[in-house]
Structure formats: C-alpha cells, structure tokens
C-alpha cells in the first residue's frame, strides 16, 4: 500500500510554504511506503500520480481557523468550477476519478499560517503549527489507513474552508 503526501504552496510567500515544508519533513522520515511530492500548486498531471496510490494526504496552508491544523477526509467534487491554472484537491480527485476510474482515499492536512507576504521563512506561529501537524501525522503513517480519522479539528470548523485557495476564492469571488 502506497501513500502519497503532496505538499503545495509557495515557500517564497512566507506561510504559504507550509505545505512544501511539511512535505520536506515527511520525506526525511523516509517511510518505504510513503511517496512525497511538492509543488507550487496542484495541477492536472497530479491526477496521474493519484491514480497510482491507495492513500493521499494533501498538505496546504490554511489562512483561517483557530486551531494549529485541521485534518479532514476529502471527496471528489466533480461540479466544482475551475477558476485558475491551479486546482483544488477535490477537483483533482474528480479529475482522477473521471480519467482513471479510481481515486485514493484522500485527506487534507491544512496547517494554519498567518503571514503571506514576500519572504522565505515561516512565521514563528506557523512553525509551531507545523510541528503539531507533523506530530499528528507521524503515527498515522505507521497505522493502516482504515484507522485514520475522517476529521480532526475544532468542532466549529467549516469543511474545506481551511485551505487558502478554497476559502479565499469563495469569499473573494462571492463579494
């Protein structure tokens, strides 16, 4: 069984680099059954990668929320509109489903960030949140995926709204 950890975001935009930073840390754990990818954003070719694994963890920066991170199961969203060159993970799952007739069990690990200006380094709070997210993920990667929770986070959390690309585009375009 192979798990894909896909961290995405721009490390040149401070806490937007939380996803790649998480991917880098997971790569250093060197689990034999865990494949790690990072990129600035998700795109259509990632569907081909998803089709080859049983489990996928999308690691992204979150720009809202009170907790250090949110973990939640993801499902394909075939009706979602494609608004940019980049894709949301739900859209990617839908693309994978339609193209390859299979999808992995997928989760979003959205780590709270605070600063998204130009800059190379994660903010101090984001670094703390990253540590907590990694401490959460490490034991999961040692367990069968059937034992992974569907959700971990504050009960008031709005599903999928933690990810910057999702919440911001929605609120932004909705105004």
């Amino acid at each position: 069984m192979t798990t894909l950890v896909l961290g995405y975001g721009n490390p040149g935009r401070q806490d937007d680099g939380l996803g790649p930073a998480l991917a880098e840390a997971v790569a250093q754990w060197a689990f034999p059954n865990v494949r790690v990818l990072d990129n600035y954003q998700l795109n259509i070719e990632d569907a081909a990668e998803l089709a080859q694994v049983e489990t996928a963890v999308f690691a992204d920066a979150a720009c809202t929320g009170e907790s250090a991170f949110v973990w939640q199961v993801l499902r394909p969203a075939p009706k979602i509109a494609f608004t940019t060159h980049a894709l949301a993970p739900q859209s990617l799952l839908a693309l994978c489903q339609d193209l390859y007739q299979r999808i992995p069990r997928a989760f979003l690990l959205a780590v709270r960030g605070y600063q998204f200006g130009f800059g190379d380094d994660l903010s101090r709070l984001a670094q703390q949140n990253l540590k907590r997210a990694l401490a959460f993920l490490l034991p999961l990667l040692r367990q069968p995926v059937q034992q992974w929770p569907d959700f971990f986070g504050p009960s008031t959390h709005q599903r999928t709204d933690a990810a910057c690309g999702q919440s911001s585009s929605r609120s932004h375009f909705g105004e």
Partner: protein
Amino acid sequence: MLATGKTRKITINPVTRIEGHGKVTIHLDENGHVTQARFHIVEFRGFERFALGRPYWEVPVMIQRLCGICPVSHHLCAAKAMDWIVGGERLSPCAEKMRRLMHYGQMFQSHALHFFHLSSPDLLFGFSSDVARRNIIGVIQAHPEIARRAVLMRKYGQEVIKATSGKKIHGTGAIPGGINKNLSTTERDALRRDIGQMIEWSQAAVKLVKDIRAKDPTFFDSFGAFESNCVSLVRADGALDFYDGGLRAKDAEGNIIFDHVRPMDYLDYIREEVRAWSYMKFPFIRSLGKEKGWYRVGPLARVNNCDFIPTPLAEEERKEFRAATGGKPSNSSLHYHWARMIELLHAAELMRDLLNDPDLQSSDLVRRGLRREETVAILEAPRGTLFHHYCVNANDEVTLINLIVSTTNNNEAMNRVVQKIARDYLEGQVITEGLLNHIEVGIRAYDPCLSCATHAVGQMPLVVTLMGSQGQTLDMKARGAGCPQS
C-alpha cells in the same frame, strides 16, 4: 452599474479561469456606445523591492518564486542575466542545451495546460455553452482521449523540468555562468521513451485547432481581431527562438520596426507608461510613441515575427498558418491558440533533438569571465517576452531590478480585445451571459498569468478604483495581502 457624469460604467468581476483576480470595466457614452474598456490587472511591484540587496547568485533561485505558474521562465531569465554579471555569457554547450531543454519542457507543459485545460472547453463546446460543462471535466466526458493526453503531456513537461532543474520547487539547475547538473543517461533514456508519443499528440493538437477553425473560419478569424505591432525574440538568422536572440518588432502589415536589438539596448526601443487607473505598466515601442507603439507578445507574435521555425513539422504548420492570412501577420486573437499549438509541436521536436545530443552528458558545466555590474536578459516565456534588468554592486548585492513580464507586455492588447468584443457583442446596457463568455474567451486567448506567486488566490492585494468621466477618482477600496483574521 455606476453612472459617472456622461459616462456609464459596467463592471464585470470576476473573470473566471484566469489567474488571480481580474476586473473588467466597460465605459459607455450617454448613448450607450462603448467608449473604452479596461482589463484591470493587479501587479506586484513589491517583489522587486524584496529582492534588492540580495547577493546576485541567489537571484535565479529566488526570483522564480515570483510566479508559481511559470517559475522556470524567471529562473532561466535571471540566470541569463547573471551570466553577464560573472562574464559567463558564452555558456558551455552542455549548459546552454540543458537550459534550453528545461525551457522547452516548460513551454510544452504550459502550452498543453493552457490549451487543453483552459481553452479547449470554449472551443470544443462553444462560447455560449453551459459553464458547468465548459471545463476540463466536460472535456473528459465528451472527449476522454483528449483529456487523457492533456494530463500526460503536462506530466511529461514537468518531468523534463525536474530532470533539468533538479526539482519542481526552487529548481537550482541554472546558476550564473552555467548549470549545476547535466542530464544522466538514466534521465535521458526515460525521457526518450515517450518523446515520439509527445510529438504525435502535438501534431494532433495542431490538427484539432485547425479542425475547429474549419467549422467557421470567418468567425474564428474575426473574433477579437484587431491590428497591432508584434514583439518577440528571433535568432540571428530570423528563426523562432524561445531562449535567446535579438528583439524584433513588426507592424500589423509585417514591416520591420526594429530588428536584432541586443537585450542591453532594450531601453532605447521599449518604454513603459504608467496610467492612473492601473498598477500595471503599459510598455510601448519608443519610436512609435504611447498611442501607436503598444504591441502583442506571445505565441501569435512569435509565429508572426519569425522568418521560419527551425524544426520541420512545426515549420510546415507555420507555412499553413501564414498562408491563412495571405502572408501577412495574423491579427486574430483566436489565432493565439493555433500559434500556441504550433509552438507546442516545435517544443516537442526540439526536446527530441536535444535528447539525442551527447553534449547533455558533458561535465563542462560552468564558465566565468570578466565581472560586470549591469545586465539585461530577455527570454520568450510561454506567455511572451520577459525582460529582467539588474544592477549589482561591488559587494555582489543587487541594487536595481526592473522586470517586464509577459502579461505586462500584453496589457494594452488585452484591453483592446475587451474593447473589440464589447463593441461587437454588447446589446443594450446589460451584461448578458453571452457577453461575459465572449470577454472571457477573448482574454483567455492571451493566457494572462496574474498569480504572481501564491496559490492562495484571494490573498493577493485588490484595489478597486472608481473613475469619473473627467478622470477624477470617485472611490477607492483596497484589500491587503494578508489573510483575513477569523
């Protein structure tokens, strides 16, 4: 809708399937006729300030973070600029060919993504078809083989980039004076395995555009059509060249305005105008002035400007393209798609040739020479001509940066396409779904990249300015770059 004196202004917000946030305003006179249309783009000049004071050798890696859509273009253009700083502009054959392979991989994946993912839904289903269907999922359902190819072509280009730059994020392949790795035989053989398929699919993509045009050539050729100048790099012999060469400008009739201009001399030929209503500059050809000197860049400009394409399959397609406009430059916005697919084919042919070149396995990676303090590099990015201008002091610190990115070069052209479409399709004083669709299709032909770094779409600064008929600012609202606090 807002009335401002004698001019009524219609605002369309957002433009979907274009990076980041775009806003269009159409100005009407008191009789309801379109007087002006503007495509507002939020550009980030802050990055240039951020990079000041950094050591020059960091720039090729750092500058690519400017854009998560086309980082390779910025990486390579900055590396070319820094070649001059370290006196290493005469690259070793291995270094130049590795960089070219990286660039062609980027051109290939970018063009494939744009056409199949963003634009083919418009072209395959029609501009007025259901928005819910007019996307890549719709393409999968109606044309599954095309969608599958799109994914694999995009993936192939990404693999080329990874093999040549080291990794997808913050690739370090190009360094001042050369490269830091060659292409191993293992990497080469893996890429060779599929290149024949990529060429075949690229040919099919060109044919697909031609088939779409053939259904209604009059509409295809006239949609968003307007005369313009074109600017691009060309090789010394006039060939299409994505990576290097001199600047050429042609007018709408195909007459040369300037030719083989060295990058260091660009300010003698290109100037940038600032307009009150936009943060984005408007470049123009200096000799023609602000009013007449604006130009197009990108696939259409490149295929219009070059004398020939130096690979056989793409050159055959260029001849057919040129014949369609009677040997003159094409001024049709939808021809961007046609030219883009010809370039896709050219990039695939170029990659095939390089993958059979033993220079890529050489260990001659870096050249150095006379140290210099000022440099300009020009590159043809997928969306068009990219300028990087730097000064570096004796302490190796960057003291000046000026970037003119492709989307900036196409700024006025995108305003013109909106204006043309508004005049052709606006009925009454309401925005219909049809008008909105047509404007989106027109802008998308230019493939503007507005993301300028973060994938967190809504986190980019947004400034909305309302202007009266006399040019006065009626209102301004700004949203900063930080996250909204919950």
